[in-house]
């Protein structure tokens, strides 16, 4: 039996636009709380720029701490968008449909949030233009393209640009529906955004071709972004734990792991908040969880490689770092929590079909993955700096300050706030995609059973 009902298009419009057309009671309080946290964090950023990075817990061996961890975390979250919409689109997985828009939007907002992190963590943020703006500023010196830190902004900005294009192209038909359903100033804005969409055959064809082309073109960018972020660390010969060849695929797979988990959590929230039970169905959540079982196992393989080759060489300095990571307080606890929350707990929770269809259990698993993945970056980056070389004289610990914690919290609030604001002006589930899925949906009778089936797209 088909799990979801096939609804008439008018009903779909009405249901999915209710986040824009009406305002739930919790909406403005939620926006208020998030704004408050963002404001507090922004104030602290201002204070930090005014006073210097001294207010953080960074010190001489540990130059990159919470901010860089958080940067990599948000870059990781941003990998869900392309995974869900581009790869699954090319793979023609039907269950991608309700998840694609939320994933892409999360991609854009988490990328934007991530980009703030390296900027505020520099000593002189007001001079960042030297760094990522490819211009010689009358000094005859362009940015140093040998530096991984210059590869970073190019990859991230390319990814941001293409993701925005990707979302915008997918939004055009939905803008047209909004244009037809609004009045006044809003109608004018949506009219401009829908770019004269009439829904004729030629426009649909162009829109679909553009979507598929962008999916294919965005894939290399998708892979390169997190690879390059990983090479920020992999290129550093002087930090033993960082100089590992496996970093690039390890980071990319980890990013997909945490990103897709975050998307599932967002989807479940949307489903509960707006009553979209008919669109975000348990079968979708289950399929996403099955995907995650594969992804997380791949991630675990790379993780094992990283650890095994950490001790493979039996070099004293590297062994010292691994000893710190695995056996010394507080890293041993972080390590245990990280491994359990990233892999073993979620795998357990996704292991049974009943549990994969239980939204509460899936939410717990997805939050657990993201806690673990945040800690993963932390435990990957910081211990390597604490025990950097054989010279024990310069070893020192890192204790983050409350200010760093609040700024990190602020980034979470920022992404939530941006998502909330977005949901007010644009549909978070692609309307036309859902309708297309409904049209392609059919059934096949085998003996006494009715099996769900789809028309093949090619």
């Amino acid at each position: 039996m088909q799990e979801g009902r096939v609804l008439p298009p008018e009903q779909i419009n009405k249901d999915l636009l209710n986040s824009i057309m009406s305002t739930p009671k919790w909406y403005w309080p939620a926006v208020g709380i998030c704004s408050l946290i963002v404001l507090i964090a922004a104030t602290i950023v201002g204070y930090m720029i005014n006073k210097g990075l001294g207010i953080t817990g960074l010190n001489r061996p540990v130059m990159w701490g919470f901010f860089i961890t958080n940067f990599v975390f948000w870059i990781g979250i941003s990998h869900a968008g392309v995974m869900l919409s581009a790869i699954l689109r090319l793979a023609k997985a039907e269950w991608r449909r309700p998840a694609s828009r939320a994933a892409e939007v999360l991609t854009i907002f988490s990328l934007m949030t991530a980009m703030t992190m390296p900027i505020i963590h520099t000593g002189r943020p007001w001079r960042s233009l030297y760094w990522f703006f490819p211009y010689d500023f009358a000094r005859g010196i362009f940015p140093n393209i040998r530096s991984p830190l210059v590869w970073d902004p190019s990859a991230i900005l390319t990814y941001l640009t293409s993701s925005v294009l990707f979302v915008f192209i997918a939004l055009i038909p939905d803008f047209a529906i909004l244009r037809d359903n609004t009045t006044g100033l809003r109608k004018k804005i949506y009219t401009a955004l829908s770019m004269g969409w009439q829904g004729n055959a030629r426009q649909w064809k162009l829109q679909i071709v553009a979507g598929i082309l962008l999916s294919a073109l965005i894939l290399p960018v998708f892979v390169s972004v997190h690879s390059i972020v990983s090479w920020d660390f992999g290129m550093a010969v002087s930090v033993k734990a960082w100089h590992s060849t496996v970093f690039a695929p390890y980071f990319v797979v980890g990013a997909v792991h945490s990103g897709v988990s975050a998307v599932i959590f967002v989807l479940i929230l949307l489903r509960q908040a707006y009553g979209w039970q008919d669109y975000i169905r348990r079968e979708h959540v289950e399929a996403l969880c099955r995907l995650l079982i594969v992804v997380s196992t791949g991630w675990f393989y790379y993780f094992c490689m990283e650890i095994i080759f950490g001790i493979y060489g039996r070099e004293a300095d590297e062994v010292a770092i691994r000893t710190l990571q695995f056996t010394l307080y507080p890293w041993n606890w972080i390590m245990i929590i990280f491994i359990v929350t990233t892999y073993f707990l979620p795998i357990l929770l996704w292991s049974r079909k009943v549990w994969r269809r239980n939204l509460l259990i899936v939410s717990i698993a997805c939050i657990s993955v993201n806690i673990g993945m945040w800690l993963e970056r932390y435990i990957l980056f910081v211990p390597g700096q604490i025990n950097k070389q054989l010279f024990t004289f310069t070893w020192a610990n890192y204790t983050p300050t409350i200010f760093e914690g609040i700024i990190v919290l602020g980034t979470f609030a920022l992404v939530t706030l941006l998502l909330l604001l977005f949901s007010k002006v644009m549909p978070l589930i692609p309307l036309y995609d859902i309708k297309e899925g409904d049209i392609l949906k059919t059934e096949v009778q085998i003996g006494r059973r009715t099996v769900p089936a789809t028309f093949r797209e090619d």
Partner: protein
Amino acid sequence: MAELKTLNHHYKDMWVFPDADDLAGLPAKATSIGINKLLLWLTLILTAIGVVGFVMRASADGLNDYEPWGYYMAAFSFVFMVTAPAPLVSVAFRLIRSHWRRPLTRIAEIFALVGIVNFVLYIPLMLMIPEIANPNGAGHHSLDIRRTLWIQVPWGAPHFWETMAMLSLPVMSCLILLLSATPDMSASIQFVSGIKKKFYMLVAGYWKGSKRQWLVMQAAIGALGGLYFLTLPFVQFLISTDFGMSLIAGWKDSIFPAIYTLMGFQTSLAAILIVLYIFRRWGGFENFIGASQFWSASKILLGLSLLWIYHMFAFFITFWYGRMEVEQNILNYLYVDSWFWIFIINALGSWLIPFLILVWNPVRRADWGAPLAAVFVLIGALMFNIRIFVGAFNAGREQIYDISITFVPDAVGPDIWDLCMVIGIIGLACLVYLIGLRIFPVMNIWEIKEGAMYQKMGRLFRGNYLVLAKPE
């Protein structure tokens, strides 16, 4: 059906599984394919050449020293790389419920028999592997225990544990093959005779096709497949580090086992596609093997080729950027200096040529596109194995206990007996596979029948399209 053909000119391409008439004849057809006797003799002769090569090499150099055996190792690793993941390919596609896998699962599973060859070939190598503990103890520039994944030299390391690991693979994969072939053997007992019939009775005599038997069979394949899935990367990891990486001092490269595993899947898929193409083109199975198989598999092959260069680049840039002496030496040895041309052929075969072939939609739709790319993939993989393992075996015995390699060794070409062994090992693998094709039904009859049930033609607006059911 005829009217459908006129309605939609894509009909022939779209229909994935054969209709009822074709299906009825499948059991007889699948168990009675005529393997060319000439082919069997040819592979047998190749095997004999290999045996001669082995005997000559062993009598000249003995089995104690690993250095002269580089090409033997390369050929073994090539066959292992191609054949060991093949059963997993079928298990994996079954797990994600791809419909197009159905005609190729048996072709993939029969590769399990070559696993026995792998194990036999592995035995001499196990004897050669040098001691992990340095007999001279630690020195100024050498270690007391050479760098391997056996950190503390546990009991039986590495010989016993590696043998166990190597043995577990053919055991599991042959079990998968037998289990998955049972319903088909049961269905085709009436079409076979003689000793083959006795074998079919032995394996499939109990099969009644009750619901319980089906459930147990599928659960068992799933469990074995899962176990195999966990074991295989581990064994590939053991082989690639113990016989490759750890023989070059200071080569510490965490992505290398991943590249080896990745190439395993790439080459397995390639080998399966080549066999599939031969079956379609010359074996008379064109009704069962459609263009859809190549269309779907070619996308995966394309993806794997791109993943290969991605992993390779991730390795390369880390070593190159770091500018450490040991890493520069290894890069120079295996990539840019000594083994440069072999590396170029490897990269062309594993990445560039398949990429350039498969990037075109019409080529991927055609049945010849993916198998053509697959041939290059296999050539590239052979070169990879020669480069890595001959390279590792010939980096010099005196440096394996050192902290790092301080020089760039020279590449070593094969002599006549090396060539004999390479030819012989590949011939032996082909021979065993051909024998397997004679024993087992070459098509997965029950899966194809199941697939045929899940498809129908449906009408959508003004066109007729294929409908494929996705069972939960």
